[in-house]
């Protein structure tokens, strides 16, 4: 398998003149971009950075810049399609693709000249063998081999018959090979999933070059945490990757443990935490965080009256007075905060929440500034999908990118405020969907559609926000329904995207089960359903399971999807 490993990449990059960076719009990509920018700046590699939010923007950016650049780096985009086919580049153009989308398109894997994939060595790609999918065109016409002169007619006829038999055999073989190839490719490309975070791959690259810094490590941590928040990787992969990062954290931050030699409080330090998975709880009140984190909200069923009572019991069980819990976390009594994590964990176990704590990392700099990795992920996502400001999408991208630097704390705090609004909106929408039974079973999947005029519906016209909403909704639905079969179904969610143009954004997410492998078949399913009904769809997003379609085509599209998946 011809994949260029990280060590070779670094040698190539160092000799590059100018590079164009095409970066997708997700937090993992932003983190990978920050690390790569730092590496480029260190080595004075001139680059231009262009944000792209979908295939159309990618193509446009490529066309605009192809006369000026020969080297392109694609971050979190480009791996799962035939790049050369789509972009039609010149022979001497080189693409470096660092993308966590899987499966990687087979053409990209086996291309030796123009496409270089940045992949961690132990990431198992499961690529089909070369000979199973590629085959040189053989010359079937072998009449030239026939010597006709000077042979007897019976011999000629015998040879002719042999040739016919041979040719039929070969044609049959070719058909069998092609049928098997279709099957292999279908199996390979059927399910979408995600590999190692691009930010972690970039950090690995920095580490191999011995240019890794604590800042880059923090970005790698945020990139991985983004995959966890968005439920893109399995629990096992997350824990494994945390272990990998923990070794780096110890290496960079061991000085803090030594009392005598510790660094000044202003220096940035990263620490491993086994902390509560309550979203933004240190920058909010404990009460708000409990209400607006999907895990607690779903387990306690906070959309119902009994759920609210259960929450009160939960707080009482821990001995936390309501007044304290509703205050800003920093203003809570220190005596209550001391053993908070253990206390909450103990009570949580009684209420059926066994995984309230999660392995993660936190960053400290100065006396006031402490953030968990998940805080940064929520803040950056909200900044990136901010609907409050009018303006080109790239404005939001730039703001989100800036907020990842420690010198832009004001942007980070703005992001945290937006994130709180977003989480509240998500929880309220989830509660209303469950209470009004908006989630219906269509047979092979669950379906929920947000109406125009629903509060905060504009927030959910953005892909990541809609995906988050869908995941939280599915979690809550699984906890609320008594139907055993429905608990195992995947979910398709639709929300109005652009009222004027009459479009709807639709996402499909895999079922919510304990041992889910997070593999999503909706990408292919959406494609097929759109084809078979001639629906006007736009598959612009890098995740194939997110599409836009015209509102009028929605019902026939859904019908096709149902019959396809039944």
């Amino acid at each position, binding site marked *: 398998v011809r994949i260029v490993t990280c060590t070779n990449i670094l040698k190539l990059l160092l000799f590059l003149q*100018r590079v164009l960076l095409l970066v997708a719009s997700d937090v993992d990509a932003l983190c990978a971009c920050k690390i790569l920018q730092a590496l480029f*700046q260190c080595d004075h590699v001139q680059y231009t950075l262009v944000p792209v939010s979908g295939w159309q923007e990618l193509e446009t950016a490529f066309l*605009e810049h192809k006369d*000026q650049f020969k080297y392109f780096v694609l971050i979190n985009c480009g791996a799962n399609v035939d790049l050369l086919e789509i972009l039609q580049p010149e022979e001497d153009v080189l693409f470096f693709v660092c993308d966590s989308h899987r499966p990687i398109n087979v053409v990209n894997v086996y291309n030796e000249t123009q496409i270089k994939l940045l992949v961690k060595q132990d990431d198992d790609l499961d690529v089909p063998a070369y000979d199973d999918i590629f085959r040189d065109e053989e010359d079937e016409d072998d009449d030239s081999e026939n010597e006709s002169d000077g042979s007897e007619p019976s011999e000629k006829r015998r040879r002719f018959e042999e040739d016919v038999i041979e040719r039929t055999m070969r044609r049959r073989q070719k058909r069998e090979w092609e049928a098997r190839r279709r099957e292999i490719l279908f199996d390979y490309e059927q399910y979408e999933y995600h590999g190692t975070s691009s930010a972690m791959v970039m950090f690995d690259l920095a580490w191999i070059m011995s240019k890794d810094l604590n800042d880059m490590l923090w970005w790698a941590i945020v990139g991985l945490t983004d995959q966890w928040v968005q439920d893109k990787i399995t629990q096992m992969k997350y824990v494994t990757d945390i272990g990998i990062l923990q070794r780096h954290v110890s290496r960079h931050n061991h000085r803090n443990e030594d009392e005598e030699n510790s660094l000044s409080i202003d220096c940035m330090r990263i620490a491993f935490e086994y902390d509560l998975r309550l979203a933004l709880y240190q920058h909010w009140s404990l009460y708000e965080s409990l209400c607006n984190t999907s895990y607690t909200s779903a387990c306690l069923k906070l959309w119902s009256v009994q759920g609210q009572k259960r929450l009160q019991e939960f707080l009482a069980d821990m001995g936390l007075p309501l007044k304290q819990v509703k205050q800003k976390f920093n203003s809570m009594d220190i005596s209550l905060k001391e053993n908070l994590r253990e206390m909450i964990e103990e009570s949580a176990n009684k209420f059926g929440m066994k995984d309230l704590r999660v392995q993660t990392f936190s960053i400290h700099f100065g006396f006031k500034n402490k953030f968990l990795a998940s805080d940064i992920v929520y803040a950056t996502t909200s900044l990136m999908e901010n609907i409050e400001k009018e303006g080109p999408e*790239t404005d939001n991208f730039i703001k989100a990118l800036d907020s990842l630097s420690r010198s832009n704390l004001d942007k980070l705090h703005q992001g945290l405020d937006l994130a709180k609004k977003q989480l509240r909106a998500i929880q309220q929408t989830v509660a209303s969907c469950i209470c009004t039974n908006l989630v219906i079973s269509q047979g092979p999947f669950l379906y929920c559609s947000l109406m125009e005029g629903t509060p905060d519906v504009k927030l959910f016209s953005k892909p990541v926000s809609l995906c988050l909403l869908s995941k939280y909704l599915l979690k809550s639905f699984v906890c609320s329904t008594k139907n055993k079969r429905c608990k195992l179904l995947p979910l398709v969610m639709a929300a109005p995207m652009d009222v004027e143009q009459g479009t709807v954004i639709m996402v499909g997410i895999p079922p919510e089960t304990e041992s889910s492998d997070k593999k999503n078949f909706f990408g292919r399913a959406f494609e097929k359903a759109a084809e078979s009904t001639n629906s006007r769809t736009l598959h612009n997003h890098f995740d194939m399971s997110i599409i836009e379609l015209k509102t009028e085509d929605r019902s026939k599209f859904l019908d096709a999807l149902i019959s396809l998946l039944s």
Partner: protein
Amino acid sequence: AASCRSRSEAKSGRTDLIFLIRFRHCCLLRNQRCVVAYLYDRLLRIRALRWEYGSVLPSAIHFHMSAEEVEWFNRYKKSLATYMRSVGGEEGLDLTQDIKPPKSLYIEVRCLKDYGEFEIDDGTTVLLKKNSQHFLPRWKCEQLIRQGVLEHVLS
């Protein structure tokens, strides 16, 4: 004209007008001082413009300058150019570059508005689109930063 009349009246012996004349004269002198100070301040700013924008002023600024000020600017430009040529050997020394000591050879810049294609010395072009970021040698960006097309990004 009023002051002339007062003066002639005073000369003709109307001593009670002396105080009025003196008062008026002081006012006039004061006004003259203010106007001159204003014009001088404008000149100082115009001089600073040469250092900020380079030898070609944006038309918006040019529009607000009087003809005499434009001439003064051109002569200042010539004077500065002659001085810069005389300093620093054969080629002269461009004193308007690197006004603050540069910290690095290359800087990260962000494009604030759609500018189009920008040609760098060695012939390569960069497409400057709004919100694109670039990492380029400092001297290639300085002019555009001054013009407000690019913004230096500090990280």
